[in-house]
């Protein structure tokens, strides 16, 4: 009886400690949840630690990311991607940039560089590939790299909808690679509508619209509005495009901008 009482007394403290830990756990739960929700609202914890991520970044990378070194792992992989680019190992560049952007979806630089390597560098390399004699296959490979670049930018925008840089890069991709001026104008306009946008985005949206068949009137109105803003907007390209549209739309002489305007 005495031994049982001693054992019960000895067990009392660990049980009490466990109960205290659990009680503390219940107390901290609302605070933790509130912080989690706030982090999600601020896009802070956008990386989901799941099997998909494990497959993308490999075992060591996953362990490092789990231990709170996500940013450092992403930086190391970014350096590796740069080395792979120097060696023109395009497949590896793609793989590494997928990992980097998965780990740091809020870093604009990573999305931008990934898209640039795919749509601008790898696509040109594919087109100039001496080992592929068939032009059709080279063009196909080039198109695939364009699409990869576009995919990076679209996912980047999805993760960073409030930043204008990726909208601008996507607009340039449509303009320079797809020759799709309507989409380029749309994305320049989206970039211009954001608070951190650069002053030229609005102009660029109007320039691109001026190349779209059937939308000349809209483009003319936009360019004219910019022209009327003042001297700072009266840049050579704006005046050239405006004069071109004035002629195309047969704008009456009295409504046209003066010859030699600047």
């Amino acid at each position, binding site marked *: 009886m005495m031994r049982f009482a001693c054992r019960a007394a000895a067990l009392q403290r660990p049980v009490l400690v466990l109960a205290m830990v659990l009680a503390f756990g219940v107390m901290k739960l609302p605070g933790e949840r509130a*912080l989690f929700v706030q982090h999600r609202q601020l896009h802070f914890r956008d990386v989901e630690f799941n099997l998909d991520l494990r497959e993308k970044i490999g075992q060591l990378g996953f362990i490092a990311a789990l231990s709170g070194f996500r940013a450092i792992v992403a930086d190391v992989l970014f350096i590796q991607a740069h080395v792979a680019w120097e060696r023109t190992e395009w497949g590896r560049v793609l793989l590494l940039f997928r990992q980097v952007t998965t780990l740091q979806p809020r870093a604009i630089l990573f999305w931008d560089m990934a898209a640039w390597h795919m749509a601008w560098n790898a696509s040109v390399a594919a087109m100039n590939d001496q080992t592929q004699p068939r032009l059709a296959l080279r063009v196909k490979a080039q198109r695939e790299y364009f699409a990869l670049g576009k995919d990076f930018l679209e996912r980047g925008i999805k993760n960073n909808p409030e930043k204008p840089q990726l909208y601008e890069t996507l607009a340039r991709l449509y303009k320079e690679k797809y020759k799709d001026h309507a989409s380029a104008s749309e994305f320049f306009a989206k970039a211009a509508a954001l608070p951190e946008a650069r002053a030229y985005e609005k102009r660029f949206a109007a320039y691109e619209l001026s190349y779209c068949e059937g939308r000349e009137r809209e483009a003319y109105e936009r360019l004219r509005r910019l022209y009327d803003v003042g001297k700072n907007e009266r840049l050579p390209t704006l005046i050239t495009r405006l004069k071109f549209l004035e002629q195309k739309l047969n704008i009456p002489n009295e409504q046209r901008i003066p010859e030699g305007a600047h």
Partner: protein
Amino acid sequence: MSAMFLAVLYLREQTVLHETLRQMSAAPREQIDDASRAIRSSALNIDIFPGIIIIYLKACLLAALTLFVSTFATTNIFTIVVMVAIYFIGHLQATAREYWLQEHSTGWITRVFLALIALIFPDLQTFNLVDDIVVGAAIPLALFAKTAVLGIFYTTIYTLLAAFVFYGKEL
């Protein structure tokens, strides 16, 4: 160490700024301002300080937890192994907690397991604000304050628990 880190960061920022201004001397004022702003936002800015404080609080929390584990551990190696496991579990605690609190049709064993993970372990992902600070995200003061209070709360509780267990030991 923090002072040394800040000094290095400041020197690097000034070097990059000078280099950029030299290279862009012929560029329009707007572009120079944009480039300078981009460099300043990626280098030494006010958000670094909350990041450093939160890292310090995370270290305090882990130290308090280690102290608590060491009060019932019989060897150093046991304490180290347990703490490494807790460190990893702590970074996954939020995943377990959210899965537990959301309505999922899982068995009761899974739910009890997840509940224990959520209740016993601290959420260490909360203290990884630095991952977002390095990409230029601004940390709201309210978020910093709440995280700091949670860190202090964890540290105090684990220290008190360690003291409670330690007093019960026969020395």
